[in-house]
């Protein structure tokens, strides 16, 4: 049994209490809504993409602490980055959360995002951490809604491209 304390680390608790980039952009170039029907987590994500660069990003919504902290840290991680780098992080984060990427191994770009590695031992909470990334992936690919269910469900099937 995993120790939940390993997941609820101070950095996650801090992002939950004081989420970064919280709100909505006024004139976003990209947007998407994420929904996890299992627990009712809802996220609204807005982005300002200029050329290949994510100039601005914001999120709002109702969710658990893991989801909110993940969204907050995601926005901090991808703001100012190239789209391709954000997509790389999406794939790496997803692989880490589902136990297919060892956060201790070299060669990934997750940095502080490895604090979420603990969710891989809490299968019911994996979706909470991944939802913001699915939503980002959907927004960047001009899909307006993302869900953690069905074929996108990390507990049942490998996640395909949205």
């Amino acid at each position, binding site marked *: *049994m995993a*120790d*939940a*304390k390993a*997941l*609820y680390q101070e950095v996650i*608790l801090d992002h*939950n*209490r004081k989420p970064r980039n919280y709100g909505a952009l006024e004139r976003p170039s990209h947007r998407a809504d994420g929904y996890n029907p*299992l*627990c*009712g*987590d*809802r996220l609204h994500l807005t982005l300002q993409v200029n050329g290949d660069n994510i100039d601005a990003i914001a999120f709002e919504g*109702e*969710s*658990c*602490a*893991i*989801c909110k902290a993940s969204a907050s840290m995601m926005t901090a991680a991808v703001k100012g980055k190239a789209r391709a780098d954000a997509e790389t992080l999406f794939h790496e984060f997803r692989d880490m959360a589902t136990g297919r990427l060892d956060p201790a191994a070299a060669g990934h770009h997750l940095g502080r995002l490895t604090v979420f590695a603990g969710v891989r031992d*809490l299968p*019911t*909470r994996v979706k*909470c951490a991944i939802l913001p990334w699915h939503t980002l992936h959907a927004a960047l690919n001009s899909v307006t809604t993302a869900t953690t269910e069905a074929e996108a469900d990390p507990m049942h099937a490998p996640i395909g491209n949205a």
Partner: protein
Amino acid sequence: MKVQRAALKTDSAPAFDVERIRADFPILGLRLNGKPLVYLDNAASSQMPQPVIDRLVRYRSTQHANIHRAVHTLSETATHEYEEARRKIARFINARADHEVIFTSGTTDGINLVAQTYGRQSIGKGDEIVLTTLEHHSNIVPWQMLAEEKGARIRVVPINDAGELLLDEYEKLFTPRTRLVAVGHVSNALGTINPIKLMIAGAHVRGVPVVVDGAQAAPHLKLDMQDLDCDFYAFSGHKMCGPTGIGVLYGKTALLEKMPPFKGGGDMILSVSFEKTIYAGLPNKFEAGTPPIAGAIGLGAAVDYLSGIGMEAIGAWEHELLEHATALISQLPGVRIIGTAARKTAVLSFVIDGVHPHDVGTLLNQQGIAVRTGHHCAQPIMERFKVPATTRASFAFYNTLAEADALAAGIREVQKVLL
């Protein structure tokens, strides 16, 4: 024998000896995450006492064969034990006849059986089915599927802010097109005990039969089918100290006899030829294929175990647990109990300001406390109370006052971590 040791006489009653009862449940001795298990997810599934486990082992080791078939000794023994379990359950719910107890795979199966046989036969275009806001999805979806197929209409009894059905509104929902009422005896999400005897009487005055979802009542209340006068009553074994995969549908003989079979196969026929098949009588008509024999026998043992303690004694102790836990949790700052009906089983659904139920569930689990979080397969209730989800602590007779204390302390710890 442990059952008798745990048994209580009602008058001059000594205090409920919960520690002696707990000794019958091996799983309650577990430690999780370094803490003693505090199991408060009984509305989802209850734990199994040693006498039921022993009964399953004895069946598997010395009595197993297929039933109603061969003439050899084991088959006769298995058949006898299976039918004996039916008899025990018929007595437990005070059915008029043993054959009114149909073995199913669970409550969901029982409700679907009624919807697909009685329902398909007697509900047509423009007819109406009355449900309530408190229903579990398993007492909503089978009726929606039927209504869609037939062009029938679903009408819903509303609730008040305490989570109680509005009986005046219930009465007003009846029209000449009302063909069926389907109502839960006890709400799984809130614990509300519905006045089903009154509701059944109200429906019968209009000649409307009533299907009761008893999944959350059978483990906690003394059941009397004849007194309730309900037409159908479905419940599950695994919520009342029995195995999973077994359940019961009670139905009145006259109704069951008129209904077509649900599933076709072996054991539900008298004779088969390619020209004509003659169905078996009750209860076999509704038990196609090899049933969960061990499950039925295990449920029989569970009913023996519960009867040994006494459903009145169980109800009284669980009520004490509910009052104690309600008093503790209602005075925690920032905690709101959802579902405050005057008559409840020992279910506490609550929300904590600023904390999502899934975080509550994970953090309580870390303290060894098992609760359910989410919408409890009752999304209309969540919608009614404008919450996406709740945390639900559901008690059984083997829970202690100290475990209620642990829950309250656990909630304070969650608030300390997250707020």
